């Protein structure tokens, strides 16, 4: 069987309009905006403290409506990627 996905309470969200717009959207859906993802413009790291830290299924709730917001062009709940030190 392929390994099962593990969903985290972190999201990657693409929002145009700058940091303020990202902060507003984060607040609107109950997320905490942890800032831009590295050097990727318009990509923000959101965290939701009321969603279980690790789950076998993607999270559903009012916060998940963010991906339908017209100001959000893309969003993705983050999966744990098993990584091994070499």
């Amino acid at each position, binding site marked *: 069987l*392929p390994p099962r996905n593990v969903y*985290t309470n*972190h999201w*990657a969200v*693409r929002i145009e309009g700058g940091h303020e717009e990202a902060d507003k959207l984060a607040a609107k859906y109950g997320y905490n905006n*942890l800032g831009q*993802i*590295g*050097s*990727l413009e318009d*990509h923000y*790291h959101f965290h939701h403290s009321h969603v279980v*830290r*690790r789950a076998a299924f993607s999270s559903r709730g009012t916060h998940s409506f963010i*991906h339908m917001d017209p100001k*959000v*062009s*893309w*969003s*993705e709940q*983050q*999966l*744990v*990627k*098993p*990584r*091994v*030190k*070499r």
Partner: protein
Amino acid sequence: YTRNDPNFIHFNDPKWSNMWYIHCTDKNNRCRSEMNILAAWQRGYTGRNVVVTILDDGIERNHPDLAQNYDQLASYDVNGNDPDPTPRYDSSNENKHGTRCAGEVAAVANNSHCIVGIAYNARIGGIRMLDGDVTDVVEAKSLGIRPDYIDIYSASWGPDDDGKTVDGPGPLVKQAFEMGIKKGRKGLGSIFVWASGNGGRQGDHCSCDGYTNSIYTISISSTTENGNKPWYLEVCSSTLATTYSSGEFYDRKIVTTDLRQRCTDGHTGTSVSAPMVAGVIALALEANPLITWRDVQHLLVRTSRPVHLKANDWKNNAGGHRVSHLYGFGLVDAEAMVVEAKKWRRVPPQHTCTKASDRRTRYIRADQTLNSTMSTSGCSEQAEQHVSYLEHVVVRVVIAHQRRGDLEINLVSPSGTRSQLLAKRLFDNSYEGFRNWEFMTVHCWGEKAEGQWTLEITDSPSQLRNPEVLGKLKEWTLILYGTSEHPYQSHGAQHSRSRMLEIPNPSLEPKGLERPTEHHEEEEEEYSGTCHSECGDQGCDGPDADHCLNCIHYSLGSLKTGRTCVSHCPLGYHEDSGARRCRRCHKGCERCVGRSPTECQSCRRGLYFNPLNSSCSETCPLGYFADEIQRQCLKCHENCVKCLRDSDRCTACNEGFSLAGMTCVPKCSNGTFFHLEEMKCSPCHTSCSTCTGPGKEECIQCARDFLQQEWRCVQTCAPGYFSGEPAGYTQHMCRKCEENCLSCDGPGTSCTKCKDGYNLFSRTCIVNATCNNADELFCEMVKSNRLCEKKLFRQFCCRTCLMTG
């Protein structure tokens, strides 16, 4: 050439003399300084003003060998979301990896502590990102930290190297890579160095790791001191170059900084090779800070050399480069890198030419090779895409297959260079196939792009599969990267950055646009009236499968017991395609290809499959062990003759090895023993000729002129012992004198001196009082009943038993 004068450069760091991969100190051994690091230093390049960061579990920034070169601006704690990348300390020192890698790059020289880094004047940082849940966001953040400040990102991690994982960067990381090479280093491009995997023992292939397999990463493998393939090394067509690292226990190891301000020469695997190359690239960037990310790759291709590295697939490609699947273009050469970098002129802009096959499904049949060809002009019609001289070649495939590990994929270039994009992998049972997976090869570097390319896909079933389900190559795309002009002959031309970086747009798909779903083709089945679907063209006389007059697939059973039509034969039967019948396997076989006892493929419970003769038996042959889960006889470790439950739980060893616990370790020469912690032969105590440890009480046999006395070896026997040579032993031993003797000259009644309170009577020590009080009549009875032979009576009746004979 190599300079082997140990005094040429000397540092006072205590492990300097152990850094054999940098300099030669032992004139009796062959010099292994082919990485020419010393020579690069002698030219004045030590990594000054170059910034390197290690993406890992943190960095011990106050380590005495790192503190001076530590750069806070090249560091961050992504796991803790703060600027301090100090590792989390625990009792197992789990988070030592980043610190170990960092030392290899930039440990301070001549500070009387530990080692010397390859770029010992470079600035070093660490990004703590592996000590927590790793996600696409975590990786992308880490790869995009201060891209204008950090020159080189070194990573020695990746998806599991277990031989069954196919995984790579997520959409954000792909973007981070592309952003890095486009905009990092103020437009010259970030340099990403990656350790190829450690899954050699699992038959893993680094093409299944999307990070090492990316054109944006410099994938680095390892070789042992003697140029052998280390046990952990994976073959791969995307490996660019190699450095030394650890190998077998008898190969010398790499020394580096360790957690808690220590040094280590523990096993390093490919992890240390990436920072070594990061250090070499730092030297080249000091020589020429204006070289681009692609220039660095060209420099490595041009300067790395096969030297004494042993591989059976070294080949010259049509671009004039010698390349292998184990080592890429060979061992890195720091001196050649700095010399070439100094005079380097930027290569022409990179073009990308993409050509996709038609969407016609091609079937991959078991035990056959599917060849699919594609001709290309290298996009000569479009100037902005024209690729004449190749750099990387990527093949993106969509393959459906019921067991992914059975596939081997090769690519043959128009010049005839064959790269193995994927080898068969025993452990990969996945039925997911490859969905737009990108394989990459560097083996065609410098060749012409134009002509016919051939993709070869071989399917070799390693276990019984449903023969009805064929693998399908649904689509493949050839992506050629390179230049329209010769990369080294057009150096007069000036190339603008905007033209150089024609990289496809980021792969993030906008909301609502999903990837086309896999096109699953329906298997066609014939139906005839009310007959069962398994009935053949002769019809049936009822609705069920046992009413068929003939079968479309296989008939099961006999005339006597009744026949029924089945699509597949059940366990215990094999499919006779000619007769379309299910025939019984030999007793004990669960799956088979014929009825003979040596045509089994798996066995019934309680029996084990013997791969040597494809039979089933209750026990496994010598050199194999019974694996309860796979119900197979699996090979013991190469040093074991017998093993138990696991390949490396040995119970008997091959010639030249001996058992230490459950491990076969090499037999050491006389005067030495195998030190399990140090994994090498270490000297015994001087009094031993063979031993089990370094102490004087761990002798097995004594050295010449020594005698064994109570598990020790002594030069003369202690009082109370005499020198003797017991039958059957060549070993001289000190044997204990009879009780109460202080000294003696042999066994039995041969005392020469007694303890206090004892008298010597006839060479025996007798308690004074007892002897004096003996009753004569009693003693006569003792003597006549032959009880003088008993010590107790002899003591009571010493006069009667001993003095009177």
